[in-house]
């Protein structure tokens, strides 16, 4: 019964979305306030209906209702509760329902928090947002309906894929989707502005928080996924340049570019047309990502050809929204008059350079991801484009970006001089070079990657500190310290996010350059040495988990003759899914992880053991978290909060409308 109600709510939400797409759009064109006002309650209603529908599906998973096809395919009565819930979005149909739920969530949020928007712009934004929802409601209802029943329900389900039964992955898709889909808001604002024919500083100020929020969610989502891959897949890799990863990385890069170009629109009213284009492209790449993941076209052209229905549908959605918006852009972008004049050496130029680098690097990832497909269709060549290509083709852009970032971040608006900015950064530069040289001297006979990355990363980190210090102006130490605490949160956000990037750059390269690996057959009770550590496999036991069987090793880890940790690497077999997984045991420390994996028993006694010493591993995600934290600080900046406050108390002051 609840399932049917959920299905019904989904259809109702589809109807509401159609109304919300049409009525406010017409109302805005004709200046009919009543028609425009439909958008707000419709957005809320649409969200409530979709949320109910999603809750109904979750309920079916929680109660293990095996009359639902989807639940049978992806759940099992013995599965822990967390994964029953996570199972709701751990499959195609459920994840698409989550997708559209988030579209409507953002629509509802815009309806609630968008009180200070001009009524026509607000009506158009909500109508465009709803048109996206309409497309995906149709996609779900016609090609991926999660509410289909089975005539003969089986006694138990086929279980969720064991690799997905992990807390890191349980929350990874919601974050990623909040990011992906959050970019739809920037898209809706861009299209609404094109229809309106007006982009100004106020527009940029409205768009920026939504983009920022989407970018924060994407950052956290990608970091969670990468962390999951690190500890779950059993060899401690954290990024694979897999098409599915690239699908989330491309929108992230575009969102980062959009964030920065929106600043120029907000502060200087320049780069308007480019910012609109970026907003369209950012969401376009979200849709491309959805297409890549959902159609299976990259995994195998043949899988796509055998079951093209879903893929073609998403391709049509992609073509309509990107193509439509770009056509509108071509027709209307000339009305966006460029203002703001500035010299070649200026903050504006630095942000243009940032945009060039981020956009091109994202397109490089795109070309690399799509190339196997193009090569097969156009040249009949079956080839692979793997990590070595991306490392080579992508990294240079990040190196240049890191090198110019501290300078660009400190250049004044309008016109600056390189000399003065570099002079302000002299200590950061000297310190970064010194650290690089030190690392070079301390390591022997390894690649230059580590030292160079240390130099680059610390240059970015120290550069952000110098930037922050420079914002406090002149005066005694105490005066400046006082001012530091009162700096706008946007300044703090900028410094923290940039420092986070520096940390991540350094960590990625440091881990790659300085990792140590040891593979051997370990005998019970016989200690052996890896790097500075002594490991002893003390015992191996069989254990029974809720829905798996495990082989658990007990490993004593010693450093400098002292036992610092006992690790329990596991090997699991999930009988229902008939699938083995490895659960690495990791001793997390600030400067390094010791990563231990147990393998198979050997005929001659002993067990295969793999041990990795991974320096700076935590710093990768620490850097990503810093970036997200920086975004969060910036999001809570006074200028956004004040705008929100003005909405809550409209009678309080005679504020100008814009």
């Amino acid at each position: 019964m609840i399932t049917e109600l959920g299905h019904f709510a989904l259809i109702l939400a589809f109807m509401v979305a159609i109304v919300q797409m049409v009525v406010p759009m017409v109302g805005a064109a004709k200046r009919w306030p009543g028609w425009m006002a439909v958008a707000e309650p419709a957005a809320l209603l649409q969200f409530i209906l979709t949320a109910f529908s999603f809750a109904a599906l979750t309920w079916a998973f929680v109660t293990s209702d095996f009359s639902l096809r989807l639940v049978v395919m992806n759940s099992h009565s013995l599965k822990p509760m967390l994964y029953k819930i996570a199972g709701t979005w751990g499959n195609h149909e459920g994840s698409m329902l989550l997708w559209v739920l988030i579209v409507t969530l953002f629509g509802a949020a815009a309806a609630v928090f968008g009180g200070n928007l001009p009524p026509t712009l607000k009506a158009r934004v909500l109508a465009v947002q709803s048109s996206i929802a309409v497309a995906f409601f149709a996609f779900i209802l016609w090609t991926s309906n999660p509410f289909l029943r089975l005539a003969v329900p089986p006694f138990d389900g086929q279980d969720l894929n064991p690799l997905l039964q992990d807390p890191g992955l349980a929350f990874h898709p919601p974050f990623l989707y909040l990011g992906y889909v959050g970019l739809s808001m920037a898209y809706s604002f861009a299209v609404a502005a094109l229809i309106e024919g007006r982009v100004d500083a106020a527009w940029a100020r409205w768009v920026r928080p939504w983009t920022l929020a989407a970018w924060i969610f994407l950052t956290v989502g990608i970091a969670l996924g990468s962390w999951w891959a690190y500890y779950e897949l059993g060899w401690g890799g954290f990024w694979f340049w897999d098409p599915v990863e690239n699908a989330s990385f491309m929108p992230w890069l575009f969102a980062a570019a959009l964030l920065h170009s929106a600043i120029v629109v907000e502060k200087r009213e320049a780069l308007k047309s480019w910012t609109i284009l970026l907003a369209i492209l950012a969401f376009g790449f979200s849709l491309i990502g959805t297409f890549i993941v959902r159609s299976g076209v990259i995994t195998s052209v043949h899988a796509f050809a055998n079951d093209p229905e879903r893929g073609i549908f998403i391709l049509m959605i992609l073509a309509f929204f990107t193509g439509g918006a770009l056509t509108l852009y071509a027709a209307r972008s000339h009305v966006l008059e460029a203002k703001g004049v500035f010299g070649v050496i200026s903050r504006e130029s630095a942000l243009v350079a940032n945009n060039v680098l981020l956009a091109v690097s994202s397109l490089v990832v795109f070309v690399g991801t799509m190339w196997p497909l193009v090569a097969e269709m156009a040249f009949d060549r079956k080839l692979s484009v793997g990590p070595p290509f991306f490392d080579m083709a992508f990294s240079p852009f990040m190196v240049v970006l890191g090198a110019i970032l501290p300078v660009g971040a400190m250049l004044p608006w309008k016109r600056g001089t390189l000399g003065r900015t570099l002079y302000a950064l002299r200590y950061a530069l000297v310190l970064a070079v010194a650290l690089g040289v030190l690392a070079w001297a301390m390591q022997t006979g390894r690649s230059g990657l580590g030292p160079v990355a240390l130099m680059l990363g610390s240059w970015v980190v120290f550069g952000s500190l110098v930037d922050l210090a420079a914002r406090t102006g002149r005066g005694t130490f105490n005066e400046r310290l006082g001012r530091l605490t009162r700096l706008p949160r946007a300044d703090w956000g900028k410094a923290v996010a940039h420092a986070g990037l520096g940390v991540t750059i350094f960590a990625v390269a440091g881990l790659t350059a300085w990792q140590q690996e040891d593979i051997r057959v370990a005998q019970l009770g016989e200690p052996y040495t890896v790097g500075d550590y002594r490991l002893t496999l003390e015992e191996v036991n069989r254990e029974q988990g809720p829905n798996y069987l495990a082989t658990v090793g007990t490993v004593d880890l010693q450093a400098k003759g002292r036992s610092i940790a006992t690790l329990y690497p596991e090997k699991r077999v999930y009988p229902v899914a008939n699938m083995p997984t490895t659960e690495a045991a990791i001793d997390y420390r600030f400067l390094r992880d010791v990563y231990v994996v147990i393998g198979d028993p050997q005929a001659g006694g002993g067990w295969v053991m793999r041990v990795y010493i991974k320096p700076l591993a935590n710093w990768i995600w620490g850097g990503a978290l810093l970036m997200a934290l920086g975004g969060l600080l910036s999001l809570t900046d006074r200028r956004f909060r004040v705008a929100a406050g003005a909405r809550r108390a409209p009678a309080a002051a005679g504020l100008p409308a814009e």
Partner: protein
Amino acid sequence: MKRLLLVLFLALAPVASPVLAVQPDEMLSDPALEARARDISKGLRCLVCRNESIDESHASLARDLRLLVRERLTAGDSDTEVVDFIVARYGEYVLLQPTGQGANWILWAAGPAMFVLAAGMGLMFLRGRQRASGGEPDRLSAEEQARLDDILKG
């Protein structure tokens, strides 16, 4: 969701016995040769996996390939000879780093070309903005000029 396809693929593929990647019994006793083998393995794709090198893969086919690489190396092949041997057998699909041959130049040139194009467009835009800044600011109207003169006089 990220590795979902990998995961689905693994789940659907007939599950090989749970061997880990490189096994101790595969490794060559000569560390220099073994290091070369590892390097080569990292650039070769496991054919039945999704975007994994044979060095990382748990599949039995990857193990066969790893053994083949080591066999060729022990037989005295150079690194390129080993790779050529494997490519001749399995096609260029095994190469994780695509060659520059044929139409692949488009792939390799795409990044630099797009960068040059984008940087050029960016520079042209900046030059335009700068020229705009070099132009005279709007002249004062006669009325404003008169008022300014008045103030300066006063």
